[in-house]
């Protein structure tokens, strides 16, 4: 897996990514209801958000998110 932009989050990120890949293979088979990775993800996000704020990336992301509603409308529907 690729590294995190915040080296201090690498350990928790790796644990989360591994958990997610296992979940993903179940999800593809229609068994994605479980939330086993939620706790790891929440720890990883806490670590990451601190770094994004420090680096000033969080405000860039807020701007970019404004336009994601267009792609949501297009791709978040049944095809």
């Amino acid at each position: 897996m690729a590294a995190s932009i915040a080296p201090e989050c690498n350990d928790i990120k790796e644990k989360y990514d591994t958990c997610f890949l296992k979940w993903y293979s179940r999800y593809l088979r229609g068994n994605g209801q479980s939330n086993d990775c939620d706790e790891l993800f929440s720890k990883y996000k806490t670590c990451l958000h601190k770094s994004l704020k420090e680096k000033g990336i969080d405000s860039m992301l807020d701007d970019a998110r404004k336009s994601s509603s267009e792609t949501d409308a297009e791709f978040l529907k049944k095809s």
Partner: protein
Amino acid sequence: MKVFSSTCTFDYSWDEVSTANWRKYCPWNDKATHVVGVDTLSRTVDPKTGILRTERLITCDQSVPQWVISLFGGSPTSHVYEVSYVDPVSKKVTMCSTNLTWSNVLNVRETVVYRPSPLSPNATTEFTQEAQITALCGGWQKIKNKVEEASVERFRENAKRGREGFETVLEMSRRVFGEQRDLEKQLQ
């Protein structure tokens, strides 16, 4: 605005491609050393459609030509915001990316789609990529054109390398997955 598009077919099933896609920028991919970070920002399954929506932050080094850095200043590190949608029922992955850095100079919007290839849907996957590149810097049209052309050229080079690198990741994923399966069988 300039548009870059490309298509190709991978000799792997859609399940394999869509899984390996999450590890596209791992150390197995020696063609993507410019990607220094991939962080997941959010991830949800839409309760109505079952579509998995993921937001990621991709961080790259040296993604723009040196002369662009000289002209507009800034650092060689750049960030890309990506939203992806996986529909496991219709078997479709759509990834929409936009640049966060240089966004006052250049707007790059890329859409990538992975779908089972119509000719052999169980064994091959079709990849399509389209990027719209718009230079926003005020002033001479000549400079805008030059920036757009250089960006398209950079896109073309990266697309080729991206394909080669992803082939390696697919091959490694299949091998490792096969080994894991064998190991599990032995342990049973």
